[in-house]
């Protein structure tokens, strides 16, 4: 059984004449240790797909199963608990709490889960060391660069040992170097720490870090590309495919 099973997922916004189909009959699977990128032109439904996979939104029809749990059957509370324990999120705008330190921000998911503060912080420190921020543990977000802030966010996504990492344009607000660092961390999460990583991006060079790329157009899954991380030129292949879709 795959870690994520998405079956015939459809999302329609609005009703009647103004109804807009954001996602139509999407089916896919993601395995443990796999890094999947989702690409497509603006408005193709890639973010909607990510939101539905993360239980942030409810589908119009279809089903998302994460680690054997059908999201449609979960209450708001159970869904919240599932997000807290099984999913780690990385957002485009970092979304760190400005008044908390790097350690406290990274510790949030475990703190929210009721872990004692000292232990939660210890866990957070371990992950901050791993993402290379061992020297900025007590810095506030406004004392960190964008790349550093996003690395705190990655540590936060990993701290609760979730099986799945969902990243929504994680490099959208970063320069090239910081982008590469962050996506490198996501790659590491899949390879070294055996997490399933699903990332939405529109940057072919960033997408090229994935094992597999899913292309969406008008809410429909239109193409799937497998990449070999040993090979070069992956980014160009991705760009070609994007051009064909556009």
């Amino acid at each position, binding site marked *: 059984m795959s870690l994520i099973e998405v079956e015939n997922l459809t999302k329609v916004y609005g009703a009647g004449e103004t109804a807009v189909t954001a996602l139509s009959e999407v089916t896919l699977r993601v395995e443990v240790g796999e890094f999947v990128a989702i690409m497509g032109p603006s408005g193709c439904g890639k973010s909607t797909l990510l939101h539905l996979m993360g239980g942030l939104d409810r589908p119009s029809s279809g089903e998302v199963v994460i680690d054997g749990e059908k999201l449609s059957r979960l209450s708001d509370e159970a869904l919240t608990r599932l*997000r*807290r324990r099984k999913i780690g999120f990385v957002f485009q705008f970092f979304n760190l709490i400005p008044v908390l330190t790097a350690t*406290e921000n990274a510790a949030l*998911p475990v703190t929210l889960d009721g872990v004692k503060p000292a232990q939660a912080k210890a866990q957070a420190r371990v992950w901050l060391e791993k993402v290379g921020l061992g020297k900025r543990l007590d810095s506030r977000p406004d004392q960190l660069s964008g790349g550093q802030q996003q690395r705190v966010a990655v540590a936060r996504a990993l701290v609760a040992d979730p099986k799945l990492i969902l990243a929504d344009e994680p490099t959208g607000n970063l320069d090239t170097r910081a982008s590469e660092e962050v996506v490198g961390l996501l790659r590491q999460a899949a390879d070294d720490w055996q997490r399933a990583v699903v990332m939405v991006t529109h940057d072919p060079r960033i997408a090229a870090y994935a094992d597999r790329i899913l292309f969406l157009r008008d809410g429909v899954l239109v193409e799937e590309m497998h990449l070999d991380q040993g090979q070069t030129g992956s980014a160009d292949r991705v760009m070609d495919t994007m051009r064909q879709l556009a």
Partner: protein
Amino acid sequence: MLGFELTLAARELSKRKLRTFLTTAAITLGTLVIFGMNILLPTMLKAFQANLLMASGQVDLTVTLKTGEAFSRSTLTRVRRVPGVSAVSGILSRTINIPDKFYGKTNVAALTLTGIDPSAAQTLRTYTIVGGRFLRSDDPQAAVITQSLADQLGLQVGDKLKVPTTDGAFSFKVVGLLPARTLPGNEEVLITLTQAQKLLDLPDRINTVEANLDTTDPARRQVILDQVAADLGKDYTLGGMSAGSEIMSSLQTGQIAFNLFGFLSLFMGGFIILNTFRTIVAERRHDIGMLRAIGASRRTILSLILVEGLVQGVIGTAIGIGLGYLLGAGIVYLETGLMAQYIHIQMGQPVVTLELLVVTACLGVGVTVLAGLLPALAATRVTPLEALRPPVADAGQRIGRRSFVVGVVFLVLGIAGFAVGGIKLAALGCLAFLIGLILVAPTLVRPIASVFSVLIGLIFAREGTGTIAQSNLVRQPSRAAITASSTMIGLAIIVGMGGLVFSITGGFLDVLQRSLGSDYLVMPPSVGLWKSNVGARSDLADRLRNVPGVAVVSSLRYASASGNGQDVALLGINPTDYARVASLTFQQGDGPTAYAALSAGRGLIANGIFTAQAALKLGDEVQLSTPTGVKPYTVVGIAGDYLNAKISTAYISQASLQADFRKTEDVFIQLNLAPEADPAQVEPRLKDILADYPQFSLVSGRGYVEQNQKIFDAVFGFLFVLLGVLTMPSLIALLNTLAIGVIERTREIGMLRAIGSTRRQVRRMVIAEALLLAALGTALGLLAGLYLGYVMVLGMSVGGYPIHYVFPFAGLVAATAIGLLFGVLAAIIPARQAAHMDIIRALQYE
């Protein structure tokens, strides 16, 4: 888990120090007023109660006339005849207000002159003599005083003690000393009963019977007391004294009024909290969404916001309680000296009950948490998706149509209550009107803002600041409305009180002129407290009348009575002379007819308070209880004068007062000079005569009127200062809203600066917004205040102070000025902040 919420709350609060301070200050002010006043007033009540208990606890039974007047000695015999009464003694006791400087530098405000029958008194009480000897029946010139009074006046046994009496100042010889007085109350001067009766011009009369009973068995004692009560009839009071209850009831009224003000401040505080937390939630939508996305439950979000409110509530309340204690204890401390000096009451320590502490804490914290609850619930509805959307400032907020409709209904009800009339409906109407205004305020923001922005546009010509300010305000109409509502409440109180004060002063000054328009006034130490003033025998008036150049002399005499079951002060006038020196202000009936009716027999002119209390109208018959039995009097007029405006009073002829109440003592004298008389010659002669009567002072009528006007101005000035303090929360609310607006729009302000706005323009934009907000609050406040003032004047009229409503133009102008001044004051800090913003940082602000 709560630890995390506390940490986050503490960090967020310390990040926005100004906002935290202002929000907390709002709560502090409310709890301060409630706590402080509730410490002060019970402490005073307790002092009075302790005083009364101690004073009445000495003998088994005291009998007084309900009216407090003197009565015949025969009552003594009637008490003595009741089986079980073992000893009785008659007393004639009277508080004597002492004029300033009467005893040189030592200030004694009042003494109690007590005439006793030396032998009978000693069968009831044990008098310990610490120097000299006790009184003897054949001792008309002798007095026994306490060691403490002797020390105070520097007297020893054998020295003379001067006391003002109806016969002029009288000198007693101090023959004995009692131990120093430890009880609260005035110092007592014991003299013989016969001498007291002579000096107080009450021959053969007493005003208290003291008695001891032959048993300590409670059941048996009750039987005896019941028998005494039955024998004496309902005109007499048995047991403890009722004096001072008037002070207690006015203290209680004060407590209610201050509590009301405290609740209003807390209410405004609640508004401020509500506004702040709505902003906090709006500001942190992104953070909240993120927390929801990474697994925070709705309950966690709710408690995050509520804990932040709780922290502020707890801190604000704690500071408020602390400052309130200092306020209450400070006033108690300052008053202790005054109270001890003037009424010999020991104030004791401030009374802080656990109950008060708990109630205040619950109110302060409760209001904060309650006000934070709505925004907190809104926060729980923030979806995790909010975290994923790029932050875009809200361009506008929709206004609930339902609250507008409900508000209009309330306004209509309010106006209906006003139109139908009657104090109850008008009061309810006023409340409905206030609620209605608060509810429709959000909808009014847009139209009022556009009207005023035209004005502001004229002032800050062609900079576009007015337009931006207006649209900023309209962007958050309900926040603007909540802020304006708190300004409204503050200003409504000012306009309302202004209406009341102008109505009172307008009416009263007129009455003052009429009542005290005579050339000279011969004044006792305290006007209105007729009972404790020592007057003069009628020969003083005669001597004044005989001074060449004096045309007419008219006096007031006093007795207390009860009419139709209501206590009333009776003033005896000479109907013909009185009309020549002064006049009553008539509401019903007219002067000539009424004065003629007084001359003719048992006629009575009732003032407004007595009319209201006893439910009287012209022509009614009033049953007055007199020392000689119940007598019927006819109401021949409804009218009042200045001196007795606050006291339930009736005017009868001096002839009736003498016949029914045996009173001939003049307590107040007015006189007019002949047209050709020279005041410079007459005045020294009048002063010569009055030198024998130190309790009286000679004042020119015009001088007195002016002096009173000054007192009026001072009292109302103080009142307005107090009200000013109570409007502080509305200033805080304005400041808060503006500061929040600036913080919220940091990025926009950065953009404006980046594309070329000067600091000056940005500052003006904030000031314009402040003025718009203040104008809105002021407009609503004026409306609400006019209604409030009308209701208060109506309430006064129903309570027996008939005054005509005077439209408070000056109050409106003052309130408008205060409202706009608040606007400018509130804008200072936020405008500075906006103008000095670092452009780059502002543009990067999230």
